[in-house]
Structure formats: C-alpha cells, structure tokens
C-alpha cells in the first residue's frame, strides 16, 4: 500500500484523527439532526416529563399552596375511597369503549376495503365523524339519547318509559359517545392499512381456494392486528383520561378519575390540590401500564417489524 491513501482508506483505519471530509460531514449531519429534533423534543419532553414529575411532587405534599413542604401520603389517604371507585369505573368505561370501538371499527374497515358503493358510503360517513370534537359529540349524543331526545321521539316512547341512558347507572351514553367517535378512528386507520397491504394477500388466498371466512380469519384479521392494537392503546388511554364526555353525559356520583381530579382541582379547600395531583398520578400509572401491555402485545405480533 502506498503512503498516500485515499480519504476512504484513512477513515477505515482508526489510527488517523477524525478530520477527514467524510467524518466531518457525518458529524455535521449528526449535529444538524440533533438541532432539527431538539425543538419538538423540548416541548414534548417538558410537558410529559414535567407534567408527571410535578404531579408526583405535588401529590406528595411538596408544593403546598400555604405552609411548609412536607413529604407525606396524606393526599392518597384522603382520597383512597373515591380513588378506588374511580379506578373501577374509569377502567370499566375505557375497557368497554375500547373493545366495542375495535370490533365496530374493524367491521367497518373490512366493509370499506371491499371497494363497492356500500364501502364508499361507510368510508365517507366515518370520515365525517373524525373531525367532530368529542365535546360536540357528547352534546349531540345528549340530544339524541336523553329522555326528551330524538330517539324516544322517533320511536314514540314516552319519557317515563325511556331508560336512563344519559346520566344512568350504567354510563351507556358515555360509552356510546366514545364508541361512536373511536370506531370511526379505528375504521380510518385499519382501512388504510388493509388497503395498502391486504389486497394482494387476499386475492392470493382466494385463488388458492380459501373461503371468505377463512380469508377473514387467516389473512385480513392477522394483517390488521398491529394497527388494531395501536388503536386500542390510544383509545384506552384517551377514554381513561378524558373529562368532558363523562362530565356531560355521566352522573354526579360515582365519579371517573378525570372528573374526580377536576372537582378536587377546582375546589377551594387548601388540601385539595395535592389530592387532585394524587388522582392524576394514579391515572398516569394506569395509562403507562396500559401502554406497556399494548407494546408487549405488539411485540408478540408476528407482523410487527
């Protein structure tokens, strides 16, 4: 080998200092990438990490409105009873809404990807649902399902005979609103995945003699599964931590976690801020566990690259 080597050969040998053009370009690109990612990272990191850390700190009594900071679990102890009912209620609402949304959304996605006129109508109607704010959805569901709502009028049922759907014991209107909005979300995401990936596999399976049911069971659903799991994770966390729908369509007691946290946060009692923070911390923990479970499920899915 001659003493005058090319830049490529020099970078390959580790003896040489890293100021070759290639190295400099790579370092420059790394800096540029870091600079590009930093603003978004700062905002997201500040809100997420700051939000969690400050909630934990406040819930432990370290940032009282008056008096000296003192480490204690009083906030958790004071809300223990409401916290337990809130956890049960929020978990039930989130689980039922998520499951129903995924089933209805997946069905809609399959109908949409059939590519006929019916599919296009369903696609259009579900797409219209997407930009409707949840709060507006809740207001509208209230007008539809309350005892003076449109549905009892249409069906000719008097308000006395109409069941307590809005503000009733079973939180039907709340679950209905979440399922309505989120099934459209599932349909949109899953139909996108199916449209881009499933058509060829589906045709191949059909040519190889698979029946419709077999294709649905062995081709369509496995291909849609990663997308459905991701959607389920997002929906579960959203419905667990969402305030306005449960506040508008639910009943005053028992309260789901976000409603409980809101009431404590707005309360004039001095000890209630740490209690609101304690509810927030518990909600965050459940969300993180749900996301962790979802990721574990996703990793066990064969199609997740």
């Amino acid at each position, binding site marked *: 080998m001659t003493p005058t080597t090319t830049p490529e050969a020099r970078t390959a040998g580790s003896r040489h200092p890293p100021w070759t053009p290639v190295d400099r370009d*790579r370092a420059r*690109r790394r800096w540029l*990438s*870091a600079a*590009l*990612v930093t*603003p*978004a*990272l700062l*905002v*997201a*990191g*500040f*809100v*997420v*990490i*700051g*939000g969690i*850390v*400050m909630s934990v700190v*406040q819930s432990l009594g370290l*940032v009282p409105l008056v008096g000296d900071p003192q480490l204690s679990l009083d906030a958790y102890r004071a809300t223990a009873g409401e916290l337990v009912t809130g956890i049960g209620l929020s978990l039930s609402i989130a689980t039922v809404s998520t499951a129903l949304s995924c089933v*209805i959304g997946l*069905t*809609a996605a399959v*109908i949409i990807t059939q590519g*006929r006129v019916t599919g296009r109508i*369903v696609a259009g*109607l579900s*797409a*219209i*649902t997407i*930009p*409707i*704010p949840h*709060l*507006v959805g*809740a*207001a*509208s*569901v209230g*007008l*539809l399902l309350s005892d*003076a709502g*449109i549905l009892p*009028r*249409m069906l000719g049922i008097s*308000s006395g005979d109409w069941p307590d759907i809005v503000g009733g014991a079973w939180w039907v209107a709340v679950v209905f609103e979440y399922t*309505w909005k989120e099934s459209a979300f599932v349909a949109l995401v899953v139909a996108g995945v199916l449209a881009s990936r499933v058509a060829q596999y589906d045709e191949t399976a059909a*040519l190889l*003699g698979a029946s419709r049911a077999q294709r649905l069971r062995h081709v369509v659903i496995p291909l849609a599964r990663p997308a459905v799991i991701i959607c389920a*994770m997002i929906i579960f966390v959203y419905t667990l*931590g969402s*305030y306005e729908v449960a506040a*508008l369509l639910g009943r005053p007691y028992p309260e789901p976690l976000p409603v409980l*946290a*809101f009431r404590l*946060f707005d309360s004039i009692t001095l000890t209630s801020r740490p209690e609101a923070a304690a509810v*927030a911390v518990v909600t965050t923990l459940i*969300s993180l566990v749900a996301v962790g479970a979802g990721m574990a499920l996703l990793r066990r899915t064969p199609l997740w690259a």
Partner: protein
Amino acid sequence: MPMMVPYGQRITPDDRTTGARGLMRPRPVDRTVRIVIAVLLSVWFALPVVPLLLWMVADRWSFPAPLPTEWGFSGAASAVTQGAVPAFGRSLVLGLVVAVIATPLGAMAARALTKGSVPAPRLVSGILLAPLALPAFVAVMGLTVVLLRARVPGLVSVVILLVAAAIPYTVYTMRVAYAAHDMAYEEEARTLGASRRHVLWRVHLPLVAPGLARAAFLAFLVGWSDYVITVLVGGGTIVTLPLLVAGSAAGVGNSATVAVLSISAILPPLLLLLLLGRFGRRYPVSNLPGSGSPRSRSAKGFQ
C-alpha cells in the same frame, strides 16, 4: 402447458361455466349480509349528528313530536348573543397558532428521524409520541404551578400544552410523508447548482406539501377542539367555542343553541377535511412524460 386461444375467440367464461368456479360464483346471501352491515354502520356513524341538524333550525319542539313544531333560527340568534362569533374567532386563531407551531416542529423532527442520524432514535421518538399516552389533565395539573410561578401568561401556557399534544400527530404524519419522500430530488437539485435555501423552497417543501397539509390539519384539530387545557389553564377567561358548547350543553332548555354552536364547531374542520381530500393529494410526478424519480433513473442509467 401454454394454452392457445384462437384469434377472436371469447375467453371470458360465460354464465354457465362461471357458476362452477368459486371466485366468480354470485353469492346473494353474502351480498345481502354485506349490504345490511353497511346500512347498519351508516346509521351508526350518521345518527348522532341528526339531532344537531334538526335542532339547529327548530324554534320550538315540544316532546312527543317527531319533528320540530316550529321552524326558525332563534337558536342562531341566541348563540350570537352568547358571544359565539368572538369565541369562533378565538378558536380559529388558537387552532391556527397550534398548527403553525406544531407542523414545522414535527416536520423537522420527522426529517431528522427518517434520515437516521439522530442519537438514541428510539428514546427520541418515544418522547415525541409520549403526549398521546399522558392524559391532558395530568400535564395541566402538574405544570400549572410551574407556569404560574414562572409568570408565563395563560394564553402562552395553553399554546405550549396544545403544541405538545399536537406533536405526536405531526411527527407521525411527517414520518410517513418522509418515508415516501425521495431525497434524490434534492441531491439532484444541489448537483445542478441550487443553493440550500433554493432546494428547500423549490424542491423539498413542494414535494412534502401534502404531508404538511395533513399534519397541519391534525394540529389545527387539536387546538380547535380542545376543552380541558383551555378551561384548566385559562380558568374560564379564554372563552373558545368548545367552552360555549360545554356551558350551554350543561344547561337545560337551550337545545337549539347547543345545536347551532355544535354545528359551527364541526363546519370549519369538515371544510378543511374536504379541501384536504380535494387538493391534498401528491402531485402525480410519475405521470409526466420523461420524468420519474432521479433515483430510479440513476438506477437504470448508471448502475
């Protein structure tokens, strides 16, 4: 064995033979089931919007009547007296501000992540997606203390929190856009002597414009439809459209006002969605004669 088809002979199977073939056999039962499911799904997605459309134009609608007993626009009038117009303006500005900030932030981060030169990429994309996993009220309740003590104005706090909530959507949308983006166009423009700024404005941004439009739409939606962050941070001082909707929906006897406010909260994003569907498509570069990706051309020509 190759099958010879004589010129002019019909090779599409006729009705008698298709009946025996699995793929082309008509299935009246399957078809009916599919149509019934499609109708049920259409009702499911459309039904909750119906009360808004009816109540919007109802002056009076006493209970058992299946349709409004008096039609009119008193709901709109009462919405205006409640301050619907300035609230509409505030929501619009809030949505636009969030979109204008969150879209470039998301696009920059997505570009860096797609190029694969970011340190600790998994951690970085995890943090960028994390606002999806954190309930908004937790972030607000945690950070109000910090933001208040730092004397950050309420409106700025609302914008920071909303931008953070929008970042997962913009980053994800732009990552999808950049994954399909062909960097070779930019390299070719640079080779042909265009400056970096020129490449950004004349090549890079036009190519990812549809992705930017989708990302901006989602970010706008976050700002436009937010209730929790505005009400918790602003304490009711920043009155946006969702606050008015919540206020009148919590009361009794003003269904027409609720309907008018709700419809005016749905229309702008719906119009944007339609515009997005109409103009947000990728420019059909590959259909132009003699064009095509520089990458594919160089692959053909030089390798």
